[in-house]
């Protein structure tokens, strides 16, 4: 955990008049896993989607303040470039159903019109699938449809698709909520590997998952960032009573 890679400065997000993220200031260190937790509707997913400018895709959605990536305001960058640098993985595995495993991995290049020689594509596919611990399982069936894989494998394929674009940051929105415990465990193990090369920001409802996988944890409540600290500290001695009530299940 060294320098800051993502930083929000007085970040606010709105859906029309609804103020869903309020004045969030947070610094995310490089090669760190940050868990974002909080009750439903607290603004954590909205904040996550603000980081790679997906929030603005929703009609009526606006934002104020800054999200900085390596010291540069993402609002001043091209959104496609932002999303190349900040990949995202969603709650349900969403591989392109008509594409092969191989094509799913390099879909980001195809969709952005980036043409690569076959050898380079092969290299990217192998490297990306290796990084998500899927290569050995699918190397002999790369031409099969991605949708034939199990739920856990599909989610890892989606992570491979994000990783293939060589992002710096990976955003995960409840990445294991649709997976069984074994697949969840595999993906969680993967987080530990991925953080060597990327910075991971994970929205999760599963507090034990936050405790297991993250270095730092942020707790959101009614749009505010209530507490942001080392995960060990948050789960043993949180500073704010609202955090304690939430993580101990006493929230009302």
């Amino acid at each position: 955990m060294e320098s800051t890679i993502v930083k929000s400065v007085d970040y606010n997000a709105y859906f029309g008049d609804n103020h869903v993220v309020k004045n969030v200031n947070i610094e995310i260190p490089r090669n760190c896993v940050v868990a974002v937790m909080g009750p439903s509707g607290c603004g954590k997913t909205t904040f996550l989607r603000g980081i790679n400018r997906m929030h603005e895709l929703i009609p009526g959605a606006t934002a104020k303040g800054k999200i900085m990536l390596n010291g540069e305001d993402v609002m001043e960058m091209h959104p496609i470039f932002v999303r190349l640098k900040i990949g995202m993985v969603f709650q349900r595995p969403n591989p392109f159903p008509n594409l092969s495993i191989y094509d799913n991995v390099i879909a980001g290049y195809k969709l952005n019109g980036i043409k690569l020689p076959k050898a380079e594509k092969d290299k990217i596919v192998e490297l990306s699938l290796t990084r998500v611990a899927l290569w050995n399982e699918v190397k002999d069936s790369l031409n099969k449809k991605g949708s034939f894989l199990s739920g856990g494998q599909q989610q890892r394929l989606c992570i491979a698709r994000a990783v293939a674009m060589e992002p710096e940051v990976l955003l995960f929105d409840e990445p294991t909520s649709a997976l069984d415990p074994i697949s969840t465990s595999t993906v969680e193990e993967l987080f530990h590997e991925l953080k060597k090369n990327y910075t991971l920001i994970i929205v999760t409802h599963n507090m034990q998952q936050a405790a297991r996988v993250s270095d730092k944890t942020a707790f959101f409540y009614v749009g505010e960032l209530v507490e942001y600290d080392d995960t060990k500290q948050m789960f043993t001695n949180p500073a704010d009573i609202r955090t304690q009530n939430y993580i101990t299940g006493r929230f009302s």
Partner: protein
Amino acid sequence: MTQLENEIQAVKVEVVSMWNLVESQLQKSRTALLHFDRDLAREVVLKEKRVNAFELKLDRDCEDIFALYCPVAIDLRFLLAVLKINNNLERIGDIAEGICKYIIEAVNDFDQSLFTKTDMTRMFDDSIKILADTRIAFEKEDTILARSIFKRDEVLDNINTNAMARVSECIKADMNVVEDALYILSIIRKLERVGDQSKNIAEEIIFYIEAKVLKHNQDVGTKI
């Protein structure tokens, strides 16, 4: 209340029950000693099995809560503290039993005058009071009372430190009390351990409530 809160409440009730039993054991060992009541001493030795059973049950209950509820924050600290308090209480139970075994194995009644000369009676009374106050601190989550234990343990330490000299004086004055004096010295050593265990418990109470670790802190007695 959530199910976890119910479970934790049940553990708390159980700890207090164990505490009451251990206090009663210590109180009875005092009475048995002062009146040289071997029957009461035997009762304490028999009841030690109940203290042990409490310890095992509490260990199991805490283990179940860890496995089933994955407690965090204050709940986690509470259970960690209970595991240690449980162990400390069991040790105090052992001390009460040990004192009673001396009473059972001694050939003659102890010379009562040695009790006051060595300050043992006062030490026994203080030990029982300290143990009771740690229980009250636990029940009421009173860290001020818990902190007061540190100073009071020093009083027991002082009696223990001076015990050798006092016992020597008694022996020099009357060689017939050698055996009794040695028993009393051993009892004083044991009571000093009651103070230590109570101090450890007080540290755990503060850890659980305030998340402060006072263990191995040399200045702990002055931090009231």
